[in-house]
């Protein structure tokens, strides 16, 4: 077993034992935001050492040249992964041998690119150096030279003619112009506006056909067999772990770049030694998925003195968005990523727990029961270092039960000193838990500001004469059109 160095963890045993629940990934839309591979990596939150190490890696990859190198390495490892999967499921020896040539060719490209990447941050430089050493070994150099020759032979066997008559198939290596090509040439000749379309498929041939191709090209296939017997021992499929690990950096940086184009700010939070979660102007990145052009940021402040808040306000006012901003940025911080905020200092909490409304998952139980089961699961896992985010929990029952259950849950969380936020529509709660609310501008047709604050919006009135209302006064028209009106 090769011991390829991780680019996510400084030591293997620093990986957290309890991953984030899949619900957290889905509730916060992390999977949709950065893809399955990267979100898989994010399920394992880091301690302070790895947070700082990853922050250093991200900072290095902000350099375009380095990002380009990482993207190139990722492309090669993805290719290795794809070919590895085909290689593992090859249907005959001839196919396996040919596939191994192709797989090893991609593997060598990966190793050489990784060796020349010249990364400097601790996690990435360890990776670069490892492959730099590997690629300079004579064994690798010989294998690389051999694979270049063998791979060229794959090109020689790529075109075969099928002559199909009744139940027989004859394979030949000739080639004639196809009808489709002729038709497209006619279209060009007639200057017709035609989009050329060719099939987009990938079909695994059966062993007998491969055997037929082998008979057409015997020397090439015997070269593949020889290559396999010499070099198969040099390949270990554990290399494929880099597919997820590189996807993590690349996907996160991709979303950061996309968000920056929408004027979203990013920062590397400082790792706080005291339990707190403080952010200035934090954004909900998932809004990018909705193509929101203007995302309203909000402050977050959870401290030991006030670790838990209710969040209330009008529908569509931005409560869930706020909660998601809190959760997403925390997950990103705990994975060592830059977060979408202006500035932040955050304690390395042990995990994030979310409880969002789920509509279609529980066919055997009622919704209320499902909510309780999910809550019990959270409490069974969450220690005192986790952050709990509740979104309209207990909104699926009668008002009386909802009020009682909400009150009990909130008091339990508060008494245990848990950090978190609880969105609720229950206004009659008798509790000393502080509240946040979304601000509505009542003076502007109840416009949603998407701002969250402890204060409530103030009423104001609107007045204007009809012409001013429609911007038809002399001054308004003059200013709008840049003309001097009499």
């Amino acid at each position, binding site marked *: 077993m090769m011991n390829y160095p991780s680019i996510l963890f400084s030591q293997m045993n620093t990986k957290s034992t309890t991953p984030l629940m899949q619900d957290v990934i889905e509730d916060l839309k992390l999977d949709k935001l950065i893809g399955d591979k990267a979100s898989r990596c994010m399920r394992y939150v880091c301690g302070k050492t790895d947070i700082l190490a990853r922050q250093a890696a991200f900072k290095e990859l902000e350099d375009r040249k380095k990002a380009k190198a990482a993207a190139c390495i990722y492309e090669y490892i993805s290719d290795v992964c794809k070919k590895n999967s085909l290689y593992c499921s090859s249907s005959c020896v001839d196919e396996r041998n040919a596939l191994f040539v192709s797989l090893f060719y991609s593997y060598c490209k990966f190793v050489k690119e990784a060796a020349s990447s010249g990364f400097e941050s601790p996690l990435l430089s360890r990776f670069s150096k490892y492959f730099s050493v590997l690629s300079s070994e004579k064994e690798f150099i010989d294998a690389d030279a051999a694979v270049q020759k063998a791979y060229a032979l794959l090109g020689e066997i790529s075109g075969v003619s099928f002559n199909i008559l009744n139940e027989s198939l004859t394979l030949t290596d000739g080639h004639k112009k196809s009808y489709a090509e002729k038709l497209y040439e006619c279209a060009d000749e007639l200057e017709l506006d035609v989009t050329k379309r060719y099939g987009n498929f990938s079909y695994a*041939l059966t062993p007998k*056909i491969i055997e037929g191709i082998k008979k057409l090209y015997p020397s090439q296939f015997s070269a593949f067999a020889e290559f396999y017997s010499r070099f198969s021992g040099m390949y270990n499929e554990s290399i494929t772990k880099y597919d997820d690990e590189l996807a993590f950096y690349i996907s996160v940086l991709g979303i950061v770049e996309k968000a920056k184009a929408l004027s979203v700010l990013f920062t590397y939070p400082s790792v706080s030694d005291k339990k707190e979660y403080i952010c200035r102007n934090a954004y909900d990145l998932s809004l990018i998925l909705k193509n929101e052009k203007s995302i309203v940021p909000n402050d977050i402040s959870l401290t030991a003195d006030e670790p838990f808040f209710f969040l209330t306000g009008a529908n569509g006012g931005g409560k869930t968005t706020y909660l998601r901003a809190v959760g997403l940025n925390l997950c990103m911080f705990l994975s060592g990523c830059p977060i979408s905020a202006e500035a932040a200092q955050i304690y390395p909490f042990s995990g994030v727990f979310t409880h969002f409304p789920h509509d279609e998952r529980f066919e055997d139980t009622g919704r209320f029961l499902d909510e309780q089961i999910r809550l019990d699961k959270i409490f069974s896992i969450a220690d005192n270092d986790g952050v709990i985010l509740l979104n309209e929990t207990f909104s699926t029952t009668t008002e009386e039960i909802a009020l009682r259950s909400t009150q009990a849950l909130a008091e339990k969380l508060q008494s245990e000193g848990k950090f978190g936020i609880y969105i609720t529509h229950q206004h009659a709660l008798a509790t000393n838990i502080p509240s946040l609310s979304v601000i509505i501008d009542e003076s502007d047709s109840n416009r949603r500001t998407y701002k969250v604050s402890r204060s409530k919006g103030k009423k104001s009135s609107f007045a204007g004469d009809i012409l001013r209302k429609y911007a038809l006064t002399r001054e308004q028209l003059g200013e709008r059109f840049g003309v001097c009106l009499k």
Partner: protein
Amino acid sequence: MKYSLLYKDLSGQTQPLSEFDKLFYDLSVDKAVSEFCPFPKRAAYFIDVLKCPVSSVDDIVFRQDILKDFLKSGKLLSDMKLIFNRYDSIRSDWNQLRQNVFPAAASGGYSSLLEYTYSQMQVTATFTRTIISYLRSFLSVLEEAELNSEGLKNIRDYCRTMTDNKAFDEIYTIASLFQYHTPEQFRFILHTHTDDTLRLIGSELTDITDKDTLHSAGIIKRIFASKKEKDISVALGDTESDDALFALNEALRSTADALFAVTSAVYELFFGISNEFMFYDAAVSYIRFLEQKSVSYVFPKMLEQYEDCFYAKELRDLILCCESTHKGEDIVPNDIAMGKGDRGILIRGSNGSGKTVFLRSVALAQIFAQAGLPVCADEAHISIRTLICAHFSSAEEEFREGDIAGRFEGEVQQIAAIVDKLKPHSLIFFNETFQTTSYDEGTDAIYTILSLLEGLGIQFIFVTHLTNLFGILSNEVRLMETDTGINRYKLREASIQ
């Protein structure tokens, strides 16, 4: 590329302007059109074309010339209508047949998929040959007539070039290969491509020969006799048979896709023209109607936008022409001359003296001219307008009874909507605007709007009872009034007392 009889270049085509709905209602365009074009679908299309004013002189001349060709030869118009109507209906037949093929593939498996693909290919091949034949018919109809218009000559010349080209014949020949039989009756040769993982990623048909031909020519014998030493025969079991069927299906599909793409590209060149004949049909009816009513008409000389010109001699109102009791000579014509540097015309007069009729006659002439149609006048020079807009004060009942502020606000809303669209070289018509508030307030408000129009280089014609405006604007715009005496309905220069 796509041919059109309405647009020299289809990139200049626009959607009917929604703001014209109200304008056309105020001008009673639908009423006028229904007089000379009693067919609702044709009339609606004609009105839709009117709602897309053409913005270049070339495009208007393009339409005028085509209309003149059709006026000269009624046979050309009827022959082309017939053949292009049939041509446009091909698409629905084609789609219908393609849909009918689908159930054959329901049984699943590669062999039924192959049957489905081959049937699709046959349907497309049939239409390829049909469409190619139509182009030959277009050419024959157009070659029979003496053409002067660029639009019709372009179609004729293109059809001639296409049908003379060998590539056109080759498409026809390839389509003919798939006319008959089923896949089992052919020998196929495919060229396949594999990638660096030995996956089949491409398959193209390079030869298709029916077995009868092979037998009769003794080709089979020769194939096997001449089989190269290197050729490898593979006995097809069930799984290998799937490989061969898959490759064959993909090869046929690729050929069918190419044939479909080429056929569609040819078809699209002329598809949709049959609708455009509705416009020319209605236009010819319009002209015949004017002739019947002895109303003189003229194809206006169109000028560029920057000329800001509307000049017409003996201009008559089309709506009056359409009223059955009127003949051309019963309608009082008016002259109008508005050119570069003129801000606009202010018109006053007693009720029922013809102010609105005049306004309407100018607006209709501008709209018809910009659609490439003749106008009811002895002579006309009209420049293209970037925007034709009107505000007609609405009837009282559209607003809340007794709510003066509400009615005024409604007018302000409409003016604000016009202001949002203003562009230099527009022509704006106002009919009794802002008379729903006090005269002083109304005068002040409209004066601001008229000042804005001046600042933006936009001309207007304004019918109003806000007589203070005449004094305020006496040195800036042309003032006119209707004659109530012996020359009733005639407009004359107004004087300020």
